[in-house]
């Protein structure tokens, strides 16, 4: 979920002249706008991105853990597919989804 004000970037764009290359002067980049909210998925991801030690720490993932991780990914995706077709019973299951639903 993007918590930034959708008008924020628009407000920051200033007209500076007729020259196309300098037509807009973006005084503050969108990335500088503070984002708050501990439960935000993006925040969690962003924090992880800036903390390199986390990725390095998890490079020691064992083959057994990898199997569990892939199983969780697969089953999560299957639930989402089943939910999609339950929500709209008019659509028919595509071949790709049928393949993904089968273990």
């Amino acid at each position: 979920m993007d918590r930034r004000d959708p008008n924020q970037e628009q407000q920051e764009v200033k007209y500076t002249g007729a020259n196309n290359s300098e037509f807009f002067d973006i005084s503050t980049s969108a990335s500088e706008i503070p984002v708050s909210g501990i439960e935000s998925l993006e925040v969690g991801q962003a924090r992880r991105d800036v903390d390199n030690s986390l990725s390095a720490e998890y490079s020691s993932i064992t083959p057994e853990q990898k199997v569990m991780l892939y199983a969780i990914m697969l089953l999560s995706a299957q639930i989402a597919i089943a939910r999609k077709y339950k929500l709209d019973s008019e659509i028919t299951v595509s071949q790709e989804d049928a393949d993904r639903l089968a273990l």
Partner: protein
Amino acid sequence: MKDIFSKALKILIGSDVSLASFQVTKKRPFKELTERELILLESQIGAKLFGPVAAGNRREFFNEDPKNWIWYEEWTDADRKTHSTTTRYEVHTDGILKVREGEPYHFIEGQELQNLSMAVQMYHERVMRDIYKRDPQTGKLIN
């Protein structure tokens, strides 16, 4: 009877409105449940996967989307004060990131990863059969 309602509506609303616009259609083609309702049903199953919940307590465990699993626990202490905690397990290609308010986030490993893996398998098995009426192995509809 219809005239009486029409007159009553006219008095209340101040204009002559037809009753037809207030009739609710019973038919809801193709859209039986919303996604939120499906998730609530799934959560009822998810909450029972870990044994009984003590009286007065509440538990939710559900798959929000392919990349997020939510665990919610609510309980009341001896002073009748209600506490709750929400844990989000984010599914990444390189691990399961555990995000909980007020705690450092980290990739889960060991017993916790095993427990989550087991819970997800049980959840999948149950919701596929009980809610989506599909064979968990083949994904095909169960007649």
